[in-house]
């Protein structure tokens, strides 16, 4: 299509890939953390809670810089990841996904935690009396019941990932085809005089994509909610 240049198509594809991976990978972890925060009693719980909210509180540039300090190839953790798993984050779309995932993480955790706190522990108790271990109770009772919260968290995370830019560009910079996501492309266009229309085109595209995801999620959530409320 001539509507978008090949580079722009690349940015769209990359944005989707980054956002999907970020959401998919962060979600299980977010569920775990939400569970720990909602149900757990352990020292340092408030610290974990604070840590989770950090990407929300910090200006994205700072988050990006901290990521660089932590996951850069020269950084201890980044080096270890590379040595052990051959995993390179810096200047790769994987790093963009990491940044996007981290930026959306607090949103996911909050939504899921809220849903977990709304689950009636009496149902979980009932499942336990029927022979379900804690893991099974979680898988068969808690998880289905918090599905609306998980969907909400995933939507927030995905939307955030689609819009994330500050942390991403600071951490993995902007390499067309590898780390140039839609927001970076939009940002670049906004920096030069007269490119507003091109920027707007990409904005419209980004909004369309996210809206599609949103509608889909509403459908899924409605179905999940119907399952729970009966009928």
């Amino acid at each position, binding site marked *: 299509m001539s509507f978008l240049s090949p580079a722009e198509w690349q940015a769209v594809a990359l944005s989707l890939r980054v956002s999907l991976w970020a959401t998919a990978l962060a979600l299980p972890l977010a569920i775990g953390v939400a569970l720990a925060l909602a149900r757990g009693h352990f020292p340092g719980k408030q610290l974990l809670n604070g840590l989770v909210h950090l990407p929300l509180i910090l200006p994205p*540039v700072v988050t*990006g*810089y901290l990521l*660089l*300090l932590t996951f*850069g*190839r*020269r*950084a201890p953790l980044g080096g270890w990841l590379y040595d052990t798993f051959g995993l390179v984050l*810096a*200047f790769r779309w994987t790093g963009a996904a990491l940044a996007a995932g981290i930026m959306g993480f607090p949103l996911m955790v909050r939504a899921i935690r809220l849903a977990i706190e709304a689950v009636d522990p009496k149902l979980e108790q009932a499942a336990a009396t029927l022979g379900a271990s804690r893991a099974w109770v979680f898988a068969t009772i808690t998880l289905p019941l918090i599905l609306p919260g998980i969907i909400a968290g995933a939507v927030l995370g995905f939307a955030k990932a689609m819009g994330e*830019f*500050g942390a991403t*560009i*600071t951490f993995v*910079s*902007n*390499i067309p085809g590898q*780390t140039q996501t839609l927001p*970076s492309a939009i*940002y*670049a*266009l*906004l*920096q*030069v*005089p*007269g490119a507003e229309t091109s920027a707007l085109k990409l904005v419209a595209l980004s909004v369309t994509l996210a809206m599609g995801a949103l509608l889909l999620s509403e459908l899924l959530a409605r179905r999940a909610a119907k399952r729970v409320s009966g009928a």
Partner: protein
Amino acid sequence: ATAGQVTVFAAASLKTALDEVTALWAQDTGNTATLSFVGSSALARQIEAGAPADLFISANTDWMDRLESAGLLQPGSRADLLGNALVLIGHGADHAPVTLTSQLDLPSLLGPGKLAMALIDAVPAGIYGKAALTHLGLWNSIAPQVAQTDNVRAALALVARGEAPMGIVYATDAAADPSVTVLAEFPADSHPPITYPAAVLADSTAPEAPALLTFLQSPTAMAIFLRHGFTKPQAAE
């Protein structure tokens, strides 16, 4: 603006130097300068939207041109305030200087690493850098290895952290960071002149604004700018 107060919209990269200069001016005159540091593009748009600014200092000429053609500048007040140089930097202290010619094998110097630059189509330092590399005939071979950031400071950070072995930044940036070495300075003719134009805005209500602009161009001020690595504007006079 209150009496004796001038609001200056200035490109973010000028912060340290400009803070110092305006403090001096305030001391001398008893007036105050309020400085708002944002990227040039955002500042220009804000001025278009009616921002209560008196003085605008841009990091490139494009945005100033746009404001000028929109009639948002006080006629005749525009001046090229500063210049800057573009340098190739490397991570760490132990680097042999290189000569920037078309013979330079930049890719092999880089190895598998990246060349950190500001956005090559959007951010001035990136635009200049690309122009210079193109002028030297080095661009095509190096383009796939360029990692662009949203501002020149982020590019500097990548080199300072060693994530990218080399980068292209302003001389002012390189001077301030001990963890990078200047490998070479790009010849002034390899890229369009790097100028920081300044102008009093048409909507300015502060009578002291032209005076401040004049002070910024004074030798006292220029000494401070030079200390921070800026140069005199190239096309001045």
